[in-house]
């Protein structure tokens, strides 16, 4: 029965789309704008997230080594550290290298630290990167106990501060996304409700001449899906174009590299599309029931 009627339902839905131009247009544009704002919000927070990740993964632990270690002892210490859980990368910085860096920092030829200082006073050190930056403090504690290490530096206060900030930004992002999603849902539902309200007499008449609730619902549903998808599609196309041009514009700025993984992006776009369609049906369903129950 439903399958037999499907053709009728689809035809009816398309017809109504065309005949109720203002209502269709209003629904499509509301969905578009809502999904567009939602999409921008998602992209922004995703990018902020990946930016935070990069910031965090820049955090380093520096382990200063004692003066009188033999090179094999140095190697042993290195190996021990490298074996630790969560250590991603280990770089040896010799005291000569350290002096060189210092020299570069301070500057001109006039102060050749290499000559003014009788002996190089700086220690050898290891620079350690953690796989998960949040483990930095733990790793640092363990590294401190390694034989030959006399001091560990990881910008103690700063890291916690950084993590605090990034945590907060993440929380706010999530709240923001949730709010915007909620807003989008409500906006779309409101518009569909108004559109169906404008056709309440049509619904009443259908009931009076013997249409079952489902017979009334189907064309509206199909219309809802179509309007929702169409609106979402418009939003996604705009988003795609805008974001792509943004990527190509910011390409030159290394630091600012935008999220451009096509898999993640297409997942976002597809979710947005589904959101639009689902909201189209859901909004229709809820609004319809209000008018059917009269």
């Amino acid at each position, binding site marked *: 029965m439903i399958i037999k009627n499907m053709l009728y339902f689809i035809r009816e839905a398309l017809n109504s789309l065309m005949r*109720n131009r203002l209502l269709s247009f209003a629904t499509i544009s509301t969905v578009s704008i809502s999904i567009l704002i939602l999409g921008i919000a998602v992209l922004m927070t995703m990018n902020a997230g990946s930016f935070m990740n990069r910031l965090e993964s820049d955090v380093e632990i520096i382990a200063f080594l004692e003066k009188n270690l033999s090179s094999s002892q140095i190697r042993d210490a290195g190996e021990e550290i490298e074996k630790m859980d969560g250590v991603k990368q280990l770089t040896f910085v010799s005291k000569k290298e350290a002096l060189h860096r210092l020299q570069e920092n301070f500057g001109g030829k006039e102060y050749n630290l290499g000559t003014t200082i009788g002996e190089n006073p700086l220690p050898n050190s290891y620079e350690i990167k953690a796989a998960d930056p949040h483990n930095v403090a733990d790793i640092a504690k363990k590294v401190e106990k390694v034989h030959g290490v006399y001091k560990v530096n990881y910008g103690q206060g700063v890291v916690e501060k950084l993590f605090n900030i990034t945590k907060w930004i993440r929380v706010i992002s999530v709240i923001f996304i949730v709010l915007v999603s909620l807003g989008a849902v409500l906006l779309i539902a409101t518009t569909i409700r108004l559109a169906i309200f404008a056709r309440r007499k049509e619904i009443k008449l259908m009931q009076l*001449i013997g249409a079952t609730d489902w017979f009334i619902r189907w064309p509206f549903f199909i219309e809802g899906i179509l309007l929702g998808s169409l609106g979402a599609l418009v939003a996604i196309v705009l988003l795609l174009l805008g974001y792509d041009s943004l990527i190509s514009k910011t390409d030159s700025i290394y630091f600012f590299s935008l999220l451009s993984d096509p898999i993640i992006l297409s997942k976002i776009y597809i979710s947005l599309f589904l959101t639009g369609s689902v909201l189209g049906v859901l909004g229709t369903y809820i609004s319809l029931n209000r008018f059917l129950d009269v």
Partner: protein
Amino acid sequence: MLVQFYNVSKIYPNGVKALDDISLRIERGEFIFLMGSSGAGKSTLVKMFFREEIPTRGQIFIASRSIVRMKRSEVPKLRRNIGIVFQDFKLLENKTVSENISFAMEVVGANIRDIKIRVPEVIEMVGLKGKEKCFPGELSGGEQQRVGVARALANRPLMLIADEPTGNLDIRISTEIMELLYDINRKGTTVIMATHAQELVRAAHKRIIMLENGRIISDSLAGEFFL
């Protein structure tokens, strides 16, 4: 026996008593005029037949099924067997004449071939040939009313309820519409028609139910009240 009313009263939410203790028995195949002054309760009575309104008190049986106790999901089945001409037409503004009629057939699940044949047929019957593609807003008042009649006839209902179907029609077209109703009545359809048109009723010699202030004040064959 098709319809039975037992002591039906209807009080609207705003307190108006539109029907007052109506008892009634309508046999299958009857033709009934419902008469009465404006506000007497004709439309309210008529709305009981297809459960647009539910009695405040009393019981209604159609084909032995209680309309009052009927479940919501059963209502469409009831309505499918009833053709209704509404006093205010209730045409869909954004469907053409043809679409308004075929829509009513699609709703009850008629198949496409039947629709294709029947729609032009009823349009012809009410004299609207040439107006198939017009929207209701492009029709005169009487033409809209006739679309309402055509829609009610389209499904060849077991019972036809017409609420003032000739209010906007001149005597010639009214008479033609009445012929249509007599015709389907002869073919077995029960017809209940609320009207003010005395000249039509007088000519018909059918059962007449007179309402006043929600009560039946007389119920008999035509003629006697007008002499």
